[in-house]
């Protein structure tokens, strides 16, 4: 049995969560927070050990100080638990805003993903990794270098996240590789138009409002109301409140009224245990349930620097795309990423976008003199599917289970012949535009 007959490993490293599993499955095996807890004593004592050549005599000293500590780290939930329990480990988030920041911890994160979570031998499997559409070629090279040099993978494909998100819809509905992907992750929000599988690079938009900002906003609202939450885990609680209770409203004023009329129905409660004292505490969750996701549609309630609503950005993005693709793009707007999971998010987005488009059609029709052909109404369709949270991973799983995948991969032989530069470019950017 060789690597071609085994399923490929698909790892989608997001800013907040990493989704990993084997190709051909419907769900990823693990969804863990992208976080590494590193032992601090290592980073300080490791420095001198790295300088001088290790002498044989102080083997035991090194053994206790540095050499063993290179395995003294945890990832995912274990890392969070570890850093809460003791002060010897500090958390490090290797990915910031969709880009890898810390390659040391990233390499370790992958190492644990492969050996301790998926428990596979990297030499046995092809790998599919993902990257955001704005990743620099150097980053891609670096990824290739780590994968081929450290893990000896037989083949690697670095896919672009929005294309995979589109491919995820490919199987569930119809064969459509044209559409706008609205990818709202924890650390980055991108709006990427794709035509026939090729990314229209010049029209990619990204906005500085992400899942983390929703958490921050919920956190801020809770704090301003003076809810009784221990400060050391208040951000974590805000994140969980966001994940469990937040929803999108159709009209804020109506929603405020609803809450005020029947607080017992809409106000939820959160119960937790203080980590230091072990005492129980409760707090109320009120308006933030619908105000959190509202920052995508009315950003001015959150910050003053960026006030363009999501639907306007999407509209601008489509308007800047080639004119013959626009109708198809409006017809297929695909959501992906964990922060689009709020209830009714797609309905709200569709309604707001439709309003803008209809207004424009009406305006252009009113300018016509009688006798001219009227513009046909434009179909706006925001697609939502149940696997939205890991749509990118699922797309990767679908892609990696086809036979063509193995041909598109960069192989180890190629890497050894040409070097890391083979990973520099991705064919989906070299489209017809």
């Amino acid at each position: 049995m060789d690597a071609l007959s085994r399923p490929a490993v698909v790892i989608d490293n997001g800013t907040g969560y990493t989704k990993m599993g084997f190709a051909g499955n419907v769900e990823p095996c693990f969804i863990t927070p992208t976080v590494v807890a590193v032992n601090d004593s290592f980073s300080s004592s490791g420095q001198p050990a790295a300088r001088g050549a290790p002498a044989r005599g102080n083997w035991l000293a090194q053994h206790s100080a540095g050499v063993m500590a290179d395995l003294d780290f945890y990832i995912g939930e274990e890392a969070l638990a570890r850093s809460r329990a003791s002060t010897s480990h500090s958390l490090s988030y290797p990915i910031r805003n969709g880009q890898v920041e810390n390659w040391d911890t990233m390499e370790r994160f992958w190492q644990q993903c492969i050996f301790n979570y998926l428990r596979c031998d990297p030499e046995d499997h092809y790998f599919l990794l993902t990257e955001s559409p704005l990743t620099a070629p150097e980053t891609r090279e670096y990824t290739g270098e780590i994968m081929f040099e450290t893990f000896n993978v037989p083949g690697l494909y670095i896919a672009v996240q929005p294309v995979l998100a589109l491919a995820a819809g490919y199987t569930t509905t119809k064969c459509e590789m044209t559409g706008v992907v609205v990818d709202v992750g924890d650390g980055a929000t991108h709006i990427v138009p794709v035509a026939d599988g090729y990314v229209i690079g010049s029209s990619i938009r990204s906005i500085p409002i992400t899942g983390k900002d929703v958490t921050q906003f919920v956190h801020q609202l809770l704090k301003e109301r003076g809810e009784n939450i221990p400060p050391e885990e208040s951000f974590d609680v805000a994140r969980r409140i966001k994940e469990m209770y937040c929803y999108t409203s159709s009209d804020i004023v109506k929603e405020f009224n609803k809450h005020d009329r029947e607080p017992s129905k809409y106000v939820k409660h959160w119960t937790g245990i203080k980590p230091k004292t072990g005492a129980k505490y409760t707090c109320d969750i009120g308006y933030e349930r619908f105000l959190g996701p509202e920052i995508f549609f009315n950003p001015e309630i959150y910050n003053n620097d960026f006030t363009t609503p999501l639907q306007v950005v999407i509209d601008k993005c489509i308007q800047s795309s080639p004119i013959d693709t626009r109708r198809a793009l409006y017809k297929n707007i695909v959501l992906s990423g964990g922060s689009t999971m709020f209830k009714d998010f797609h309905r709200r987005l569709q309604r707001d976008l439709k309003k803008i488009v209809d207004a424009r059609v009406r305006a252009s029709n009113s300018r016509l003199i009688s006798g001219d052909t009227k513009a046909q109404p434009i179909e706006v369709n925001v697609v939502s599917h149940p696997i939205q949270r890991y749509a990118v991973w699922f797309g990767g799983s679908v892609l990696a289970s086809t036979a063509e995948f193995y041909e598109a991969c960069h192989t180890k032989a190629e890497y050894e012949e040409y070097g890391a530069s083979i990973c520099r470019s991705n064919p989906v950017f070299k489209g017809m535009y």
Partner: protein
Amino acid sequence: MILLQSPSRFLLQILQDRVLSGEKGIDIDCHTVEFDDVRYHIQFSMRNPKVMVLSVALPLPPPEAILYDGLPLGAIEAIKAAYGPVVQILDPPKDGFDLTMKINLTKLPLDEEQRNAILTQIASIREVVLGAPLKLLLKHLASKAVAPNVDKLVALVHRPNESFFLAPQADKVTIVYPMRFQDSIDIVLATSFLQEFVEARRTAALNNVPSCMWSPAPPLELKGVSADALNANAGFVTFVVYPRHVEGKKLDRTVWNLLTFHAYVSYHVKCSEGFMHTRMRRRVESLIQALDQAKSDAEKLKKLVHGGSFKRLSLKNEVDSRF
């Protein structure tokens, strides 16, 4: 996380989710692969949400290892002993797999601790099945007797098409691993890792562990084994296990560690490569820093002027320069 754990994380997660999820169930049908080509196929059907059908495929056996109905010696008995009524073996196994079991989650003990113990045990199915013959031999060692009707040299499946060898005696068992690696860098790293491994054994703190040897040529115990099974590019590792290493609770751990020795070495080779990269990165950073410091003042100034050119574009500067 220096050692690889015996229970499969994924299996355990699915089992625990399912036990806690209550009555309603969804279809699950997924495949996963573990190191050394152990494949799992997990199925839950909507109709029977509390019954899991688990199929396991084992690594391709090398010609010198002896199997019974596609399973290692004593595997069936080991499964029955480990799981009791919870697990029912289906015969024949599913196409392409070596073992299919039906796990009835309603028959789990109600006590949470016991239940978790047995779930972990199910997740370590690999250890139970592949480790069965090894466990049998080591049990005999613990009672200081040679197992009846056992050859002088036993070959057991280690990896696909590779085996490791045991020479059982009344008071000790000698275990020999031919180590093979694909990549040339891995061979070098693994060889030095193993030599260091033997070296580490000599320190005073580790006096009671099994003695361990490494040699580039096959040791004497392997006399008479076919040449195919003996071409190892990273040498041979020999462990001598005494009864004190397999007493009571130590037995399971010893079996697992011996069973996955290659995976352990390979894991650490990869880890040390990662560690070296970390150090290389740090070195490059410090070199760049040194280069930056060595720059003459003129060069630094040039950079500043370059940065300043940005400023010249502003309106205010333009007005200034006009006067």
